[in-house]
């Protein structure tokens, strides 16, 4: 009986690990810099990291289908600069945003085709995009920002007590992502491809088409993140997305989705992004530079992974032991029956 109780406790610990980490971080920073935590902190942190949270949703689908995507950061910068150029030359914000959407979706479709149809490693295809898109984004306007304003952006940054429309957009996107992942064919096939592409193909999953869908969905997420980034900065910046792809991957991995594919949760990825957001915001409230954020982000990534792997192994071992005990206790009954 005690074995069952231990198992239940470890399982609970495994499941709530991320929430505990978030809580521990919040308490740590609250103790270290007393003025940090107030009624504005929570909405501010969520709104400030809106592009990251949106990208983490797309990245969950990428990684759950075993197709890691390194391009979102560079593509965000490029899409922002393209929006800026179109807005500058035509004066129409909507046309600019549409062009950007066309760009991110078409790059996603091409990448998906290269990965799904030609079987080229997703890491390599998206690494190439990561490099050329960053180059183009910087080249497009000589690394100068292009100011973009519009009534839509005012709405996005408007709200009550810091709870802006941006936050609503993020929450809706995360919830929609969770629904897509767990309640639709798209999510089901994506997970099947991640578990084993070959197996999925043999059981009749249109692997190529759904791989393209996964990359296109990432394109959509990149576009939405671009819109939120422009609204935050009031301008298109060629460095807007630098490093975001790595942050998004870290957020998804901390959220429990692994590159081996198959399992994961969009909500947990969102929580992973919040962990990074708290870390970043807390460290800067202590007056520490980005370098410290990098250091702790890297260490946190490895530590969280190691601990969660150890917890998983513990659960497996406890379950196996319980089964052995179960057999042992039920064995005499069988012996009696046989007699």
């Amino acid at each position, binding site marked *: 009986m005690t074995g069952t109780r231990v198992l239940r406790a470890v399982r609970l610990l495994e499941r709530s690990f991320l929430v505990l980490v978030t809580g521990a971080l919040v308490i740590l920073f609250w103790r270290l810099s007393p003025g940090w935590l107030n009624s504005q902190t929570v909405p501010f942190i969520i709104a400030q990291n809106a592009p990251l949270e949106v990208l983490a949703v797309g990245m969950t689908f990428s990684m759950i289908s075993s197709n890691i995507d390194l391009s979102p950061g560079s593509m965000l910068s490029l899409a922002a600069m393209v929006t800026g150029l179109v807005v500058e030359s035509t004066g129409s914000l909507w046309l600019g945003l549409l062009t950007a959407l066309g760009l991110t979706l078409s790059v996603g479709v091409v990448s998906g085709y290269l990965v799904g149809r030609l079987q*080229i490693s997703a890491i390599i295809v998206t690494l190439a995009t990561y490099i050329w898109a960053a180059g183009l984004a910087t080249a497009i306007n000589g690394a100068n920002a292009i100011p973009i304003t519009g009534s839509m952006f005012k709405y996005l940054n408007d709200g009550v007590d810091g709870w802006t429309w941006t936050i609503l957009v993020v929450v809706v996107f995360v919830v929609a992502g969770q629904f897509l992942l767990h309640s639709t064919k798209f999510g089901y096939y994506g997970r099947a491809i991640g578990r084993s592409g070959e197996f999925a193909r043999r059981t009749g999953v249109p692997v190529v088409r759904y791989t393209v869908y996964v990359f296109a969905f990432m394109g959509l997420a990149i576009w939405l993140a671009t819109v939120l980034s422009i609204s935050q900065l009031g301008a298109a910046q060629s460095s807007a997305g630098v490093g975001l792809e*790595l942050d998004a991957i870290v957020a998804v991995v901390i959220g429990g989705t692994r590159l081996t594919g198959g399992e994961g949760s969009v909500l947990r990825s969102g929580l992973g992004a919040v962990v990074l957001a708290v870390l970043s915001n807390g460290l800067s409230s202590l007056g520490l530079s980005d370098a410290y954020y*990098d*250091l702790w982000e890297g260490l946190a990534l490895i530590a969280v992974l190691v601990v969660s792997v150890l917890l998983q192994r513990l659960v497996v071992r406890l379950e196996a032991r319980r089964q052995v005990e179960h057999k042992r206790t039920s064995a005499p009954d069988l012996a009696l029956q046989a007699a």
Partner: protein
Amino acid sequence: MAVNSPTLVGPGAPRLGTTTTEQAARFGIVLIAMVIFAVFALTSGPFATVSNMRNILEQVAVIGVVSIGETAVMLTGGIDLSVGSNVLLSSVIMANLNVNHGWPAGLAIVVGILAALLVGLINGVVSTAFGIEPIIVTLGTLLAAGGLGQIWLNNSWITLHSSVFSDVATVMPLGIPLMAWIMVVLYALGAVLLYRTTLGRTVYLIGGNRSGARLAALAVNRRLVAVYALSGLLAGVAGYLDAGQLGIISQNDGTGLQFSAILAVLVGGLSVKTGGIGRVEKTLVGTLIAGMIANYFVLQGVAEPYEQAAIGFVILVAVLTDHVLRRREP
């Protein structure tokens, strides 16, 4: 993929390629390098001069050395993203110990290289012991090592004075900078290691068929740790060369270097699809091609972002060529 078994047992398989595509796959990259060289020499006056060749060799040395380790790692089917930060970290440690703490240059360099080795060991141990994908673990060490290097730089830079550092760029045996010699020697050692030792053969086996290597009772995990440690060690050596070449250590040293190394490995024709196929001397050719392109763009006055955009497309072309060549293989 069973048809690939001749290549799977190792690159030294004595079977000579018979079909044109096999020949192309074997020597194509050298040919491409020669064509690029010829085109650049014809279209740019200062390109094919002795001093510019010397420049190119000096410019590619750091990436070249890092690419040896990256080749070994990618042959096993893994990837090492941490090398860029590792170069920064090791050179910061060297410079810090030597300049700010008065350590003798030689000792400082050894400690810096050992630190890089340690990062590589962490990559190998964490990824094998806990079964975490190398790209994720090395992403973690990329962030952590880079952060640590920048913290120790303290938003500033360190100027080196010791000749032990600057010698790698200024001493020129036979008219070629010492750092280029070091790179060439390391490539020779890398070739011996990959083609003539148990570790090297195991690397190919792990990449070609990991579960097969396990079934053959090979110590897969221990070999993998060795490969990641080697990659770290070479990043440390590259950190020394980088410090010597620049004479100043600053925040952005090594940034994105991992992608240049991966690029060199891919242009060199390492198969990203099947693993276990690729040769380290081709990586050297890949490094030289990337070096020539970068150098040519500078000579032609092309802005750096355009150069970056072009390199991104070069990767795509290289990978697609790889795909076409390998699909035609009998």
